[in-house]
């Protein structure tokens, strides 16, 4: 027992899996018959057709609605205990493991636990093995920690949901997949988690499957992710046939060797990393595959918070950071990553300005923030990316949960134009959300400030960065501040624009929802303090913690880059910091001006530039473009292939061959017309020919 608690690392993913099994059993054996009976539908085995109430509102979505009050069945309490319980336990185990890991010397902080050999075929040997190192420990803690809070929140949020147990099955399954993703010690196992989270995302987005838009969104998410996965798959093939292994440690250890021997050319590294990045764009909703994320808001709000803000969508960033050793070998890829990140950041921020659905604003904000993280990766600042990933997990989860609380209070209303003045109804929600908004806007002292500024600074100073990237990112930061405050002002301040009926029921959420909010608010404030940069007198603990993962590669791949950063004067760093804060404040000020002082102004602006407003409001028509350019095309081609090629051409040949035989038979049968004279004639003709032949032969001879 040299490893102590670390030997129980397997419990971290195993506990949520246990939750899946237990909740699954409950969902299948208890909840299913219960719901069927409730809906008046026949049970298995066929007890005759039921004639239940099938009014549509009843089944479609009952979250937060004034749905008929059923007695809370006992099984729900059990589920409400198991589901967050297992995740909480996983968090505790993960925390203990990380503490145990932290007690080791810095260069020994990689722990691998091999569970069983998974796939073995010839030289391919992929074990099911977990790896805990600084990077995965950050991820594991964020995932289990935030995940636990969101599970607790869900208990309250989903309390009116009929398929309560099913929801938690999916949620626990997601935790399991996500933990496999971050704890895997090789690409293939990571890919299992990678697709697993995509699957859970699909299931949870389409949780209210009776809503067409929900199931559409789920499918869209899965397919967009699949396109990315295609890249990861190919990248894995290249990695395996180049390095002969898929295990992280083995792959990265071979990098210098293969680099020297010329096997791993820059071109090859570029291809591998670009393919990996394609996967990342799918999972982390970057241009061009970002379109699924806003639609994913069809899912329950805690799901949006957990999957589409805090954890799953950051998997792309994690993967890029994990593969940093490869990325640093491919400057072209780095540039692509940085540019895509920056463009996505500003592009989706502009879309966020005009959205009126509270969750969609947050969704575009998420896309934008993820762009930041990729910008950080692209300029080689992987630590900053992970740092921002973590702080973003806190405040974006908080924002989503807060919006969920608002939606909950308003019986499912998501349109900000029908909110306003909610401050007095939901004080806790307001306070916590305000903190998060400050954090995301980059107000000094809060977590978002430190992480975002780190990225901005790296974008400016790193060898991969440029002032241009900094400019885009800073501008995006300003826009972020603007639309986030727009959201806050529209929602909580001003006069109420609520439906009176809804207003009557407006209420603060139960403690299971508000306590997670408060905890996350604390984290949003304090979460950044572990990474205060040196220039502000901090010790940047976070960077030191991750140094064993990133520094060897930084040293090997881009040593000069790290040094170049050092040469910039501290004054410049502080100056830029101040500038970015100023930009953010401008954004806030503008929001205050437009949505508090001159509330009629936004509509005027929209009228002044109708085309621009229209384009931005419709998200630059990207969805429509994809629909037109890709989906329509493929469907048309497919129908063409089926009807023209398959049915007409191939079957035409096949049936044509059959028809040919039949037609030939039809002709040939005339020879046997059944008329005796005909037979006599053919006999004669044969005789003539035969004698002719004999004659011919005799003449020839």
């Amino acid at each position, binding site marked *: 027992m040299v490893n102590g608690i670390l030997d129980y690392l397997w419990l971290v993913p195993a506990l949520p899996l246990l939750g899946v099994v237990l909740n699954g059993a409950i969902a299948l054996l208890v909840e299913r018959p219960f719901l069927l009976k409730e809906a008046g539908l026949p049970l*298995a085995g*066929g007890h005759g057709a039921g004639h239940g109430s*099938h009014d549509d509102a009843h089944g479609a979505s009952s979250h937060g609605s004034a749905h008929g009050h059923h007695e809370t069945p006992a099984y729900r309490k059990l589920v409400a205990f198991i589901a967050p319980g297992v995740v909480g336990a996983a968090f505790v185990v993960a925390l203990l493991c990380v503490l145990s890991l932290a007690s080791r010397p810095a260069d020994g902080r990689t722990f691998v636990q091999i569970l069983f050999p998974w796939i073995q*075929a010839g030289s391919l040997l992929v074990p099911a093995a977990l790896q805990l190192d600084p990077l995965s420990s950050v991820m594991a803690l964020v995932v289990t920690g935030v995940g636990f809070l969101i599970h607790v929140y869900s208990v309250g949020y989903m309390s009116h949901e009929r398929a309560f147990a099913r929801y938690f099955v999916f949620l626990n399954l997601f935790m399991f997949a996500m933990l496999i993703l971050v704890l895997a010690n090789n690409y293939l196992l990571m890919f*299992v988690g990678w697709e697993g989270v995509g699957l859970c995302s699909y299931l949870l987005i389409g949780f209210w499957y009776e809503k067409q838009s929900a199931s559409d969104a*789920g499918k869209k998410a899965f*397919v967009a992710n*699949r396109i990315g996965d295609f890249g990861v798959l190919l990248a894995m093939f290249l990695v395996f046939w180049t390095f002969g292994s898929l295990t992280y440690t083995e792959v990265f250890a071979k990098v210098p060797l293969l680099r020297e021997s010329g096997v791993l050319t820059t071109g090859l590294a570029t291809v591998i990393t670009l393919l990996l990045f394609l996967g990342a764009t799918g999972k982390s909703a970057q241009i061009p595959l970002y379109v699924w994320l806003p639609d994913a808001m069809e899912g329950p709000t805690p799901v949006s918070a957990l999957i589409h803000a805090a954890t799953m969508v950051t998997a792309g960033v994690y993967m890029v950071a994990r593969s940093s050793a490869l990325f640093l070998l491919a400057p072209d890829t780095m540039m692509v990553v940085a540019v895509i990140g920056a463009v996505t950041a500003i592009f989706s921020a502009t879309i966020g300005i005009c959205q009126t659905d509270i969750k969609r604003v947050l969704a575009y904000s998420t896309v934008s923030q993820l762009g930041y993280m990729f910008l950080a990766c692209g300029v080689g600042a992987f630590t900053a990316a992970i740092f921002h990933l973590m702080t973003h997990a806190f405040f974006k989860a908080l924002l989503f949960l807060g919006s969920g609380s608002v939606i909950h209070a308003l019986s499912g209303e998501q349109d900000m134009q029908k909110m306003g003045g909610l401050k007095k109804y939901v004080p806790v929600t307001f306070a916590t959300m305000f903190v998060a908004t400050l954090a995301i806007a980059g107000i000094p002292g809060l977590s978002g400030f430190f992480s975002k500024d780190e990225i901005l600074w790296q974008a400016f100073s790193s060898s991969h960065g440029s002032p241009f990237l900094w400019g885009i990112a800073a501008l995006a930061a300003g826009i972020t501040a603007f639309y986030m405050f727009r959201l806050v002002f529209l929602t909580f301040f001003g006069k109420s624009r609520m439906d009176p009926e809804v207003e009557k029921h407006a209420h603060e959420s139960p403690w299971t929802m508000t306590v997670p909010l408060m905890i996350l608010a604390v984290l949003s404030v304090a979460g950044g303090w572990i990474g205060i940069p040196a220039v502000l007198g901090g010790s940047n603990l976070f960077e030191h913690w991750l140094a064993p993962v990133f520094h060897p590669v930084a040293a090997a791949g881009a040593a000069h880059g790290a040094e170049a950063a050092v040469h910039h004067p501290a004054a410049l760093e502080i100056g830029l910091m101040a500038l970015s804060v100023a930009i953010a404040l401008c954004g806030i000020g503008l929001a205050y001006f437009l949505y508090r002082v001159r509330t009629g102004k936004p509509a005027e602006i929209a009228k002044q530039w109708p085309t621009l407003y229209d384009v931005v409001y419709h998200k630059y028509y990207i969805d429509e473009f994809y629909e037109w350019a890709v989906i329509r095309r493929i469907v048309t081609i497919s129908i063409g292939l*089926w009807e023209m*090629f398959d049915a007409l051409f191939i079957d035409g040949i096949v049936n044509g061959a059959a028809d040919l035989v039949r037609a030939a038979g039809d002709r040939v049968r005339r020879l046997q017309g059944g008329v005796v004279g005909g037979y006599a004639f053919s006999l004669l003709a044969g005789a003539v020919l035969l004698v002719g032949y004999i004659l011919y032969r005799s003449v020839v001879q």
Partner: protein
Amino acid sequence: MTGVALLDQHLLSVLIALPLVGAALLLFFPQGANDAIRKFTLLVTIADFLLSLSVVARFDVATAGMQLVERAPWIPQYGISYIVGVDGISLWILMLTTFIMPITIASTWSAVTKNVKEFMVFMLVLETAMVGVFLATDLFLFYIFWELVLIPMYFLIGVWGGERRIYAAIKFFLYTFAGSVLMLVAIIALYFHHYAVTGVYTMDLMKLYELTIPVKLQLWLFAAFFLAFAFKVPMFPFHTWLPDAHVEAPTAGSVILAAVLLKMGTYGFLRFAMALFPVAAADWTPLIAVLAVIGIIYGALVAMVQKDVKKLVAYSSVSHLGFVMLGLFAFNLQGIEGAILQMVNHGISTGALFLIVGIIYERRHTRLISEFGGLAKVVPVFCLCFMIVTLSSIGVPGTNGFVGEFLILLGAFKVQKWYAVVAATGVIFAAVYMLWMFQRVMYGKITNEENLRLTDMNGREVAYMLPLLLFILWIGVYPQPFLRRMDASVNAFVTRFEAKKQAALAGSPAGETMLVRYFDGKK
């Protein structure tokens, strides 16, 4: 001979003969005793499955060659014998066959109500033929079993099928028969060639393996075998019998067709076409790989726009079998092991899909996607099963489909990068068409009144679906037991393939195989 000794020494023969004996006994059942007939058939198939388990138990992992071999002279003056054996290549396909049979029989309980006795007799004869195909190692014996499969299947489609059953049955029969006749010619040619070289008449596959066949002859013989197997697989563009046969066949027929009959084609490639004619196989690889890749993409695209669930699944089979072919013609361990595993996977998941379709068809008597919608609410257990099977068909990690596809693409990627890249896009399309179908069937509101009265899967249906789901997850999570038993045989296959190829090339004038020379020259 006592029973124990019989099982001990003639296990494989018993496996082959048992269903046939069952079919014979079935003839003594009175015409109307449907329940007894069903139970008896189920019993026979389960017994066969249990016996086949002991094949796995007695299978030696380290042996590459044929195991549990039985041989007996049959027509000795022509060198024809009865030889059966099992190795790592055929083991799992054999197991798949015996495994899927009881499940299929169980699925017919309420689906087949007319001529039950005849139906069951055909099913049992079919099982004998299928098991025989995978166990025979004498070409003549193999050919007999190969053709024997056609007859019961023809009747299953033609008698118990849907509206256009006659068309489908004849199309199925002629398509596959056209190919196998050519194969017969090739077998005879091979037979005489062996005689010409060694002076011995034999149809023993193991002896024929030892032959070094001149390159030119290989090309012709391979062409004949190729057609026979390509029709059966079916490879693009020989696939059009499949959608018709699947759509018209009764559920049990579709399941067997998808799970086992298609595998006969891919198995034939591996065991005969590739093993006997390595130079030709290598020579044809570009063509076959291109067809496989086209099949993958084409099948997926066409599946996407189908209106009939069964037809959709049928086209998805074209796509999946394209993967298998691509894996086989990678000629490396990963590709071939992946392909064999994928054969089993496809049998399980597509078989399960057809069962799923059958379950819903039995209740609604339609398979049109547009007739459904919102079923998830009324039939949750069905929905869960459907979901897992769908995921397996898509190849989501954790299910069996992933392991197979991954190994295939990994193997193919090594030798034919671009084919693998294009094939990998098939993974995306698979998600599109399966999920779209799933969404249209299961999600949304219930728009059709009739669907409200649907009943969920009953105990029997759950009972036969469970083993399939179990294997979907088992192979996905822990494929080692399956892969390990293939290792030795596949390894030996790959080595022998390369050695035989070189030997044949060395012994023939240059330029007879343009392609191989061309590609080898480029390296």
